[in-house]
């Protein structure tokens, strides 16, 4: 029984991590149909922001929950103003430009932070789960993800701002006719998406060794999860994370972690072949 609980917890942790790293990308893609291929580097930047803040003596919780999102949000503002806003509607060009940005960011971070892995001390000890112990920090990650998803859902579904954003997703022109500036909405969305990415980086920093080239591992999974999820931001991310995370975990237990990763990729390809618009084009249609 305890072992089952631990396995379930493990699964929840895997799904949560996937959802966490995908959320920022999902928000931006869901609204603006912009795929920010530098998303992985945004996460890494959040990690470095946390590390730097720690080095300056900032409390670790503040560093990862406040400093990281704010830093990356600011950076996202710059990127949106300077690059993204010229490329709306040009899906392929956005992909290429953000890919260039990701290369540049990885290179830039190498120059500033060096290429060695920097660790962040794990601030939480193990937690007792029956006869086993699980990482307390893992619990924290799951909680953060749950809170994040809930907040995003509530804001999108229940607040006026969320309604405007969802309206703009359907038709920017109508929203403009109602007096809201689509440009402002896009900028805001991109900034919030960046903040979420920064948060992910900050929160994951104690668990994953942060190097300038770590971005690659994040973007691949996030990209796949977001596309598989479809247009609905929260529902899509959760649905895809759950599906892909479960498949991955299943194969990991069956064989090795590498097989689990491969299974995740293959199942995404199969999913997209049958549901090219993502899961939420069929299931949970129309939810936030």
């Amino acid at each position, binding site marked *: 029984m305890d072992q089952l609980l631990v396995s379930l917890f493990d699964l929840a942790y895997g799904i949560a991590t996937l959802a966490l790293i995908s959320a920022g990308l999902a928000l931006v893609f869901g609204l603006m149909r912009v795929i920010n291929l530098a998303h992985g580097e945004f996460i890494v930047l959040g990690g470095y922001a946390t590390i730097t803040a720690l080095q300056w003596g900032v409390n670790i919780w503040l560093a990862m929950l406040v400093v990281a999102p704010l830093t990356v949000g600011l950076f996202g503002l710059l990127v949106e103003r300077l690059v993204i806003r010229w490329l709306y509607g040009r899906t392929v060009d956005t992909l290429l430009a953000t890919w260039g940005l990701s290369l*540049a960011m990885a290179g830039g971070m190498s120059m500033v932070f060096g290429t060695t892995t920097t660790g962040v001390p794990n601030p939480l000890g193990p937690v007792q789960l029956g006869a086993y112990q699980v990482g307390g920090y893992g619990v924290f990650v799951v909680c953060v993800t749950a809170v994040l998803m809930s907040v995003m859902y509530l804001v999108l579904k229940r607040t006026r701002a969320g309604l405007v954003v969802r309206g703009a997703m359907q038709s920017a022109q109508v929203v403009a006719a109602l007096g809201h500036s689509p440009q402002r909405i896009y900028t805001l969305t991109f900034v919030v998406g960046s903040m979420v990415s920064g948060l992910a980086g900050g929160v994951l920093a104690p668990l994953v060794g942060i190097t300038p080239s770590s971005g690659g591992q994040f973007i691949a999974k996030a990209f796949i999860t977001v596309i598989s999820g479809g247009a609905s931001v929260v529902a899509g991310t959760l649905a895809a994370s759950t599906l892909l995370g479960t498949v991955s975990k299943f194969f990991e237990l069956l064989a090795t972690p590498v097989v689990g990763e491969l299974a995740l990729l293959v199942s995404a390809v199969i999913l997209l072949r049958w549901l*090219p618009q993502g899961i939420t084009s069929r299931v949970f249609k129309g939810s936030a």
Partner: protein
Amino acid sequence: MQRTNTPRAVARWWHGFVATAAMMALAPLLFAEYTLTLLAIYALLALSLAFVWGLGGILCFGQAAFYGLGAYTYAVVSINMGGSTLAVIMGVLVAAVAALALGAMMFYGRIGDVYLGVITLVFTLLLFKYASSTAGSEYVIGQARLGGFNGIPGFPPMNVPGRPDVVVYGLGLYAVVAVAVLACWALLRWVGSTSFGRVLIGVRESELRSELCGYDVRLVKTVAFGLGGAVAGLAGVLFACWAEIVTPEVFSLGVSAEIIIWVLVGGLGGLWGPMLGAVLLGALKGWLGMQQWMDSGLVMGALLVAVVLFLPQGVMPALARLASAGRKEGGHER
């Protein structure tokens, strides 16, 4: 943009071809053939994507997959066969078959732009992850150990067909690569001028209208994708012969990104521009790699962003326009 097949345009192309061939023949007098061979391999790789993307309108995010498959297949087969001839053929074949299979899966599934990008990206990732995980003696194909992250070293280099003791290296290898580049360039240019090639360009311009004319768009795209994969596979084979080691790096996203940058900078739609783009950017990257103060990724990435924002038609075409504008200016009475 449309290639013209008028006699004048064809003649001009031949002039360009001969000039390029001459430049390639004379280059070893000025530069080390070791570097030139690698740059020529890059040009071949760029050519493959230039065809698939420029003529077919298919943006493949994972062209490195076929490049890597060519390289790995060469390594594995040459170890098992003791010689290179079959290995070269198998390398190209495996890459072509993989491209045909992946292409068929995507195009018969009517996958759109973005999702095509995802799937090609994922395919390369899959190969990268798999290749990186094959450390350990149980991962063998025949006598060749896949070697995981460290890859496969020490396989037989290219030899003259039928004479396993005569190795092709140095200037000889450069000559082989140069001939391959020129031959593939001529071949793809020819394909572009055939019925099939013109239909492919039509498909790029309007899939709907192509279908309404009765063309099987899925088949056309699959064949084009397969052809591009074959050329990329050949580049991979030649790379293996040059590097004498293949590692999972050949499947990396970094390589796929570079190929796209070469084609963009060189000018999407043409064949020669991307090849030149590959040579120049490859040389730039090599030069950047030799100094410490600027990270090459930073420069390449910034370049890509700049090209997309300001010169989406490509750097080469922009320069060409500048050059012809300058010539026109010069002809006027001031």
